């Protein structure tokens, strides 16, 4: 016999269950449909006419799509590394030191998180145009504009995550290390950094997701000759909607989700250590 529903067991109430179901259908139906129709034979995305993987073949043979994809991955990787370095250092500096203008730096570093992306996008667009940022650089330097933009909005997130992690840090460990004769650098490398690791991984994960998820900054900062994945998809969507777009999108979805799940798995064991 089922026990009666306790007053706080909301998940056992029918209306709550229906609500959750409706919300998850709302969140997932579009993505599931998008993936399903990447396997559809018909070019017109509407009626199911049979299973095919042709669109994947087409997407994988579309050299500009592949180039766009590689560029986006490259941008995500480089901006993640830079964001982790900048954000981690900033978090440590804010955690460790007292200095004039600290609250100003704290506030300004939070700004890229809160202001509308479009404002940042147009500002960088104008900045690059006026500075005369060199174009026509060899790969991957031609991606520098986009990478810089991604770092601007990613590293403040890393700093927030790492600072939250540092809250629980016992500074006497650092002092002990120095008392035992370790240098500033050895202390950082052997004591502080291992403690920060969880925060750095979580922050890096966030930075990578933000980079792969971004459209607006990429749209405004990528010059005419650098193709990135979202911008490529955007122009494909504006021209005509074919299952090829679905196939390409599916590849990116699978890629990001797999990446994040792997990273989460990788992060789990270290939680116990820290």
């Amino acid at each position, binding site marked *: 016999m089922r026990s009666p529903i306790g007053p706080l067991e909301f*998940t056992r109430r029918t209306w709550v269950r229906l609500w959750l179901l409706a919300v998850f259908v709302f969140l997932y139906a579009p993505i599931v449909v998008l993936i399903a129709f990447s396997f559809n034979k018909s070019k017109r995305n509407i009626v199911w006419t049979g299973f095919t993987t042709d669109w994947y073949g087409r997407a994988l043979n579309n050299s500009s799509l592949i180039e766009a994809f590689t560029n986006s991955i490259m941008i995500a990787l480089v901006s993640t590394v830079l964001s982790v370095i900048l954000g981690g250092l900033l978090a440590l500096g804010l955690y460790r030191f007292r200095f004039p203008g600290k609250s100003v730096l704290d506030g300004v570093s939070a700004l890229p998180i809160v202001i509308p992306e479009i404002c940042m996008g147009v500002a960088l667009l104008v900045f690059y145009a006026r500075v005369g940022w060199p174009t026509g650089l060899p790969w991957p330097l031609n991606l520098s504009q986009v990478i810089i933009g991604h770092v601007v909005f990613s590293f403040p997130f890393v700093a927030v995550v790492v600072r939250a992690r540092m809250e629980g840090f016992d500074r006497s460990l650092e002092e002990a290390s120095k008392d035992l004769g370790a240098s500033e650098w050895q202390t950082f490398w052997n004591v502080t950094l291992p403690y920060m690791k969880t925060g750095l991984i979580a922050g890096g994960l966030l930075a990578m997701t933000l980079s792969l998820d971004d459209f607006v900054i990429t749209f405004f900062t990528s010059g005419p000759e650098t193709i990135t994945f979202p911008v490529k998809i955007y122009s494909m969507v504006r021209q005509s909607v074919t299952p090829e777009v679905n196939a390409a999108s599916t590849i990116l979805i699978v890629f990001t989700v797999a990446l994040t799940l792997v990273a989460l798995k990788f992060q789990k064991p270290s939680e116990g250590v820290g």
Partner: protein
Amino acid sequence: MENWRQQPWVFLTFIAPAAFWLLLFFLIPLGWIWFFAIGEREGPVDIVVTWTMSNYAEALQPIYLQLFLKTLWIAVLSTAICLVVAFPVALAICFAPSRYKGLLLLLVILPFWTNMLIRTYAMIAMLRQNGFLNDGIGAIWTAVKFLLTPVGLDGLMGERFEPLALLYNNTAVVMGIVYIYLPFMVLPLYANLEKLDRSLVEASLDLGASQIRTFFEVIVKLAKPGIISGIILVFIPALGTFLISDLLGGPDSQLIGNVIERQFRAANNLPLGAALSFLLLYLTFIALALRAWYAAREEKADA
């Protein structure tokens, strides 16, 4: 905490890279735009700072002012819908048996790992004339008609199902914003509700308050910081949205973001675009200031 003078070089190594990056690639570009907004065009590309207010005056003319009001309205509406939809979800995850919690949270976050453009594109297939939502409604319509036929009431429903115009209008834009930003509302709510002292909820119920009264007078009040974080996280990106209105909206769904984008990329009226961007930024700052003011007031009330 130590004074930076004790180890100035260590201090600089920590702070300088981020400070440099923020100054060069964030503050200077934004400052540039700020100066454009008080400048005038001279020749095809040059802009001279003349401390004019004419760009702001133009940006505040009825045509753009209406656009601001409309953007504000759409952002408020989407944020409100997000809040109403997300609250039961966050509450349910919070009080779910612990073995399901991780899974439910993952299900909420997972769409957030999918590129925003792809999700917006996925919405098109759902909403268009021959899309899946219309097919679904059509199927329900046919079923209802089939059920009503024996009773002789099928005449009430018209001859055949007319697909609804779901795409390329303001409703589609609101749905798109809710779809894209819903996880942003669920997560802060969940984080806040998770910390909530359950005995307070139990006490309220034990003392005879109804579930509904407990919900509004205990749970909602305790979750206020989470509600406000969620509102800020959805409202600000909704204010600046241009992709969603561009792809899902119709000719009358232009939002302020679309106009800014056009000034910078096509119309090339940089001073006007700059003035519009800064008005949008000021709106954002007002929202943030309201939040800070509210937090300070709450703190005072607690003390």
